């Protein structure tokens, strides 16, 4: 690094910059140069060839201290690294344990619920009026897995879904217009119900009368479980009439408008066989049946 020429008189103009200059140019401790000056002033010969003779117990002490510091640091680092790794592994295994337990519990819930359904159906008898009503209610409340023909609607984000966009009527808080929003899914699901669907599921989440479809952050939650696009809506019902009614409904037109205006990809198709799982939550907190 070259220093600008010193002005002929007075201090340097850029004196305030001398800190950086000094930092970069005076890297050697000035003490060495001063000590050499002092030695020269005392008339000692600079010992170039025999530098080993300049070594003294002080150097021994200093080098020993430096080596000690480095060794301590090395030992400390080596001792701490496995500990951190161990803690991380413990955390991961705890999370995995809990997840395993969770899914085990869910399986158990499903099994118990299936047994309960079977017991209830058996107790009521399949041919009685109560039994038929119970079976129909089980289907429409989402308590049992169902299967049958129906309509499948696949909605997914527009192709260039990462462009940031400003505010919009659909989403006053701003956000990406080319993404599917919770409102869009709500409209689509409502349209399917209105078209005569008997059971609806979004990405394998069975919807009940109490299901919520809402946004949290950038993810759409259905019954508090985050979903990722593409969103597959499966509705069981008469495929032909449902498709026609859905396409002519306000909600169907809404989806077509999304397609033409924002490029949201949307596709419907009739299926001969759809299988929807039971709803994961059927808990009612406050309502009790009339005795």
């Amino acid at each position, binding site marked *: 690094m070259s220093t600008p020429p010193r002005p002929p008189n007075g201090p340097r103009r850029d004196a305030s910059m001398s800190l950086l200059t000094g*930092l*970069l140019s005076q*890297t*050697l*401790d000035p*003490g*060495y*140069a001063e*000590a*050499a000056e002092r*030695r020269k002033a005392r008339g000692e010969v*600079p*010992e*170039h060839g025999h*530098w*080993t003779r*300049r*070594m*003294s117990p*002080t*150097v*021994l*002490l*200093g*080098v*020993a*201290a*430096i*080596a*000690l*510091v*480095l*060794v*301590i*640091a090395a*030992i*400390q680092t080596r001792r701490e690294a496995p500990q951190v790794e161990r803690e991380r592994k413990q955390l991961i295994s705890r999370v995995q344990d809990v997840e395993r337990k969770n899914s085990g519990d869910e399986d158990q819930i499903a099994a118990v619920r299936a047994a309960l359904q079977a017991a209830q159906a058996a107790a009521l008898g399949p041919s009685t009026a109560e039994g038929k009503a119970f079976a129909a209610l089980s289907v429409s409340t989402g308590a049992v897995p169902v299967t049958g023909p129906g309509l499948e609607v696949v909605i997914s984000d527009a192709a260039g879904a990462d462009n940031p966009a400003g505010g919009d009527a659909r989403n006053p808080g701003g956000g990406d217009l080319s993404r599917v929003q919770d409102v869009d899914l709500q409209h689509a699901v409502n349209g399917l119900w209105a078209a005569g669907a008997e059971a609806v599921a979004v990405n394998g989440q069975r919807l009940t009368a109490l299901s919520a479809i809402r946004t949290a952050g950038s993810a759409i939650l259905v019954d508090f479980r985050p979903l990722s696009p593409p969103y597959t809506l499966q509705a069981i019902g008469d495929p032909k009439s449902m498709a026609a009614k859905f396409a002519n409904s306000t909600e169907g037109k809404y989806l077509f408008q999304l397609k033409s205006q924002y490029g949201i990809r949307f596709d419907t198709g009739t299926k001969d066989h759809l299988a929807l799982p039971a709803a994961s939550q059927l808990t009612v907190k406050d309502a009790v049946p009339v005795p």
Partner: protein
Amino acid sequence: MIAAIGLVIGVIAGLVFHPTVPDGLAPYLPIAVVAALDAVFGGVRALLDGIFDDKVFVVSFVANVVVAALIVFLGDQLGVGSQLTTGVVVVLGIRIFSNAAAIRRHIFHA
């Protein structure tokens, strides 16, 4: 020769006594390491320049470690410990690099 003996003594002392750093001093260990490296490179460069001085070497090492730790301690008390640690590491790092470059020029003349 005597430096090599000192090195061996230091390493053996560290390995034999296994000194544990108290938790209060643990944050200053990295700073001490950087200051120690600075002293080593400065000393070697002074040696090659022919102006090595044992007293300056030891005093500069001890003073660097103490002052660096003090700055970081002060920063911790003021809530800017990490920033001051960065500052100390940057300054000492620049010195280490420059001294290493000077040593390289001395040895390889390149």
